[in-house]
């Protein structure tokens, strides 16, 4: 009927498969925060805040303006900024919280040490570099998508990421 169409336009939020969206996006947002702020518990808290905000505002999401993941990560970035405004220190990236199969205790200890070491290196990155790393490796976004999200040029994103990874390697 007339008003069904109308309503679809006005509210621009036709019913989505929220279960599928959640399953698809949760790891991306969670890992964004793992790389962005570190600690697993804090990452969980900030992931929760992000999704709750997104779900409360989901009727405002307009499909024609961009991908849902981009919209969600825009909210996540803001949540991260709010977090740092309140907590000036960075959390360390937590060590392995699961036991990989088929590994000796020595191998486990070595891997745990590697994670902690890289976490410490990430903590030392400037805000912008750490956010790009989080978007690239935590959320697995393409350079182009990161560029759209951050307002940087695609080539600039690539250059910054390249240098950042170089820096991490040098710091290792």
């Amino acid at each position, binding site marked *: *009927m*007339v*008003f*069904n*169409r*109308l*309503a*679809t*336009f*006005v*509210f*621009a939020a*036709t019913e989505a498969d*929220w*279960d599928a969206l*959640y399953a698809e996006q*949760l*790891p991306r947002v*969670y*890992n964004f925060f*793992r790389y962005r702020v570190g600690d*697993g518990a804090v990452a*969980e808290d900030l*992931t*929760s805040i992000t*999704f709750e*905000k997104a*779900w*409360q*505002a*989901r*009727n*405002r*999401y*307009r499909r024609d*303006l961009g991908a849902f993941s981009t*919209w969600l990560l*825009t*909210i996540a970035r803001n949540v991260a900024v709010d977090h740092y405004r309140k907590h000036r220190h960075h959390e360390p990236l937590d060590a*392995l*919280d*699961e036991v*990989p*199969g088929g*590994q000796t205790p020595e*191998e*486990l200890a*070595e*891997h745990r*040490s*590697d*994670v902690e070491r890289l976490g410490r290196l990430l903590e030392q990155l400037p805000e912008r570099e750490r956010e790009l790393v989080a978007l*690239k*490796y935590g959320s*697995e976004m393409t350079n182009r998508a990161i560029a759209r999200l951050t307002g940087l040029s695609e080539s600039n994103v690539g250059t910054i990421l*390249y240098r950042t*990874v*170089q820096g991490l*390697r040098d710091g*290792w």
Partner: protein
Amino acid sequence: MVERHRAGTIARMFHEMNSGRIGVQDERSFTMDEHLMHELRRDPDPEFAVRLRERLRRHEHAGAALRWRPAFAAAVTVAVVASLFMFPSVRASAQAMLDMFRVRNFAAVEFDPERTQKLRDLKQDNPVLMFGRQEVIEKPGDPQTVATPEAAGAIVGIDVRSPSELPDGLALQKVWIEGAGAVRFTADAVRLRSLLETLEIRDLDVPQSLDGQVVSVRKPQVVYQEYTSEKRHAVLIQAKSPEVSLPPGADLPQLAEIGMRILGVDATQARRLSRSVDWHTTLLVPVPVNASSFRGVEIHGSPGLLVTSSSKDPGAARGENHTRDKGRTHGDGSIVMWTEGERVFAVAGNLRDFELLRMAESVR
């Protein structure tokens, strides 16, 4: 899937890079770097994922209850309008003449949004099926995009009107036509009684004579003109009035009362409205209590209805897809509806109310 981490992977990779076995200058080494960085990813804890999903599900339910869901509400409107006319008097049903419903006025009615959720829980979110069977006589087909409003008018056979005033930044983006459609409803008294019982509405009767009565609804072609800017959008909709063929002698007030009570309208209000509204010409627009505001307006001297759906979660999604007016969020949008002669108009969008009304007034 949880990606298992190989012990010493990171250390070995950095060692290999530092030892020159994997240089960072070539394409292959860059790929290795990326692989390395991904090694720190984790799947979220399953218990956390389940807990969060449950919380979000409550938002979905609460949202459905607290927010105006116009698609559903509109469908309910149509169903209510249709259902209002299903009751024939036994004597009159023998007559061949049918009454006709045409939209001339709009009436907003506040309903209990929790009822919407309850109907959803009852799998009754196709409101038409609450009352009986639905048979599609004519499908509208896919929308047809046209170049100009004039081109749309030539196809539809009406002089398509356009706004002469647009809020800053808005420009015509797209014109399209939605085809005509027709459906036929057959009432099912048993189903309706069962629904009333489930909803614990026990003070209303569903007459047996309702059973098997047929109502036909025909929706003419509809012309849409979409106006957009970077963050704002509006659409002008116009069509001839939909027509509903009614069994003669229908006790419209009684059926209106049943329809409103199913929607969760307060019993007293439903009784009062059912007796004060001209159901041959009035389209009922359900508006949830506390989630939307509405008021009667006048467009070109004709009575209209302005409905604004507002939300108050300014922390969410900063800056995305909504505008503000003195602290009030208009992210969900407003709609103004009015009629002129045989035509029904609506302007809807995420504009401020005064902009929406000004745009409507400029439609000539």
